[in-house]
């Protein structure tokens, strides 16, 4: 199996009629993703690439049984879109938008958790289980089916590392980005727990970066894992006190440095790759 999603996942696209929403819907459909509905208020009754558009999430869920939603709404409306999805009974929300105000994220994550709904993101490239489904914006051609699970804080670096693995014939079970923001719906640690329980996943790759303490926190769980873990941490040469693009990528004082993360992960028995390319080399040893 794979984690979170598979070929039977029924996907709803919130914001389906926008530029990104419609383009990505087309690409996901081409990949084979089971997109059952779209939502754009005021555009109900129209279609996008033959996907039926509804005015509300409630209606879309009632008519189609969608269980997962992917968001392409503007950052300012993301919180509302999440709350609408939660109330309509959606169980997994993939929040693609970047630049969501962090206070909104805190509120929507708290609300979703109180209703047992999982959010991936915001600022996530989404989730792909190669060969089964793609609920995200990643370029499909760099991924291939196999046994490596990848959890990443970055989108494009996820593509690079999955691409490196595919290039040497190492496929992936599930790949996802947890999101580059300071506050995210699902942590690296939670994803590691899922990978640990997943039969298809034989090896786990963490793509981390400077800022925050997610990698350090993951270390204590990794000690209990019975699958090998490889990690790459971006930002070894980043200066402290400067936000490196991702709102979460900042070194403050002694916290959040690449050294601190590498040290914690090494202590947990994780093999560190110092370059993206090295992940493929190290992975070969374990498979």
């Amino acid at each position, binding site marked *: 199996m794979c984690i979170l999603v598979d070929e039977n996942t029924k996907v709803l696209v919130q914001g389906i009629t926008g530029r990104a929403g419609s383009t990505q819907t087309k690409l996901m459909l081409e990949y084979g993703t089971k997109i059952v509905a779209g939502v754009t208020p005021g555009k109900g009754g129209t279609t996008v690439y033959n996907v039926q558009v509804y005015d509300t999430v409630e209606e879309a869920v009632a008519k189609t049984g969608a269980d997962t939603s992917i968001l392409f709404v503007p950052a300012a409306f993301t919180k509302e879109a999440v709350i609408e999805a939660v109330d309509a009974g959606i169980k997994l929300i993939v929040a693609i938008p970047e630049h969501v105000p962090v206070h909104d994220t*805190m509120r929507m994550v708290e609300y979703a958790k109180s209703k047992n709904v999982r959010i991936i993101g915001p600022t996530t*490239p989404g989730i792909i289980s190669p060969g089964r489904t793609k609920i995200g914006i990643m370029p499909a051609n760099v991924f291939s089916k196999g046994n490596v699970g990848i959890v990443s804080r970055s*989108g*494009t*670096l996820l593509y690079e590392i999955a691409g490196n693995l595919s290039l040497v014939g190492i496929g992936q079970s599930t790949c996802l980005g947890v999101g580059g923001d300071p506050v995210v719906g699902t942590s690296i640690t939670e994803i590691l727990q899922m990978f640990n329980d997943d039969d298809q996943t034989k090896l786990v790759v963490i*793509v981390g970066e400077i800022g925050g303490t997610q990698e350090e926190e993951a270390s204590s769980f990794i000690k209990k894992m019975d699958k090998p873990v490889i990690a790459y941490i971006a930002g070894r040469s*980043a200066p402290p006190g400067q*936000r*490196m*693009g991702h709102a979460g990528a900042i070194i403050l004082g002694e916290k959040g440095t690449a050294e601190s993360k590498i040290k914690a992960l090494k202590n947990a028995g994780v093999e560190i790759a110092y370059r993206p390319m090295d992940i493929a080399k190290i992975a070969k040893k374990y498979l």
Partner: protein
Amino acid sequence: MRLFEYEAKEIFRDFGIPTPKGTVVNSPADVALAVEKVGLPLVIKAQVLVGGRGKAGGIKFAENLEKAVLETKNLLNSKLKGHIVKSVLLEKKLNIKKEYYLGVTIDQSAGKPVIMFSTEGGVDIEEIAREKPEMLVSRKVSISRGFYEFEARNMCKQLGLEGTLLTKVGEILRKLYEVFVKCDAIIAEINPLVVTENGEVYAADAKIEIDDDALYRQTSLNKKPEERVEDPLKAEAIRVGVTYVRLDGDIGIIGSGAGLTMATIDIINDFGGKAANFLETGGGINEQLMYNAVKLLLQDKRIKALFINLYGGINPMVQAATGVAKAYKELKVSMPVLVKLVGNEQEKAWEILESVGIPVVKSIRTEDAIEKLMKIIGGK
């Protein structure tokens, strides 16, 4: 976006947090009027958006008008830790009996606001946490439930406050949380909160940093982030809509995605090169944005080569390539430029770049591209 102390104090006053009597001055000519308004003795504080201002000599005292004029004259237009002082805040000097620390920020792992209180004010919070953790109380709160004054009083009581001081400080701590929420802050801090000899309480310093992603709805602020940075390239980057950080090397970098861009810089470092900057586009690439990004880096005279590393997931690669090609031709770029680009419509994008003579690395490996880049630079 960080606010100046005087701006943060304006907000504090709006929320009922007491601040010392003070006024902002941009010219020594205005000091006399300010002294008349505020009274003597005075503290004169340089308004710069950088920490450690006191140690760097940015805080002066004056007992009379002459001294106040002189210190203001010395501070204005001087440089503090690389920041030019454009204004000073003249405030009534307080008779300090005790200093507290009050702060609200975000606990990233919990995804919740965290409120902090310490009776060891005047030093930074990291130092309190390290040296005297027993003098620091903190509490994470549910943002939908909010933070109540009784909880603030409980925190203060834990560190021994009582009587009027307990209710006064408790009220200020609750109001600081209100500032944090209403202003979309990522940090709201009073350090120190001063208790004077006659029992009055004032926010002697004020720090507020607003979430850049929420500036659009903080309309009462009406502040331009690009006017708050010293580096003209950084200001230009804010206008263009990309994230820019100056580094000390000579290879210009444009990347899509923060992680990939950081990794690119790390790899360049490993290969013995040095990046001149971090420049990240985010997911909003179009032709104009790429054109502007290239144009921006060309203003940096240190740069001797340009490396562009892009993935087309949500970003349209044909538009990206068109923007780069256009900038390359129109701006008559003479330094070596190398592009690695993978993703949607990559073949078409490669063709656009190659048609104007820009070499393209078609490998997925950034390492391959950097190796080639170093050869090109070395060969020149």
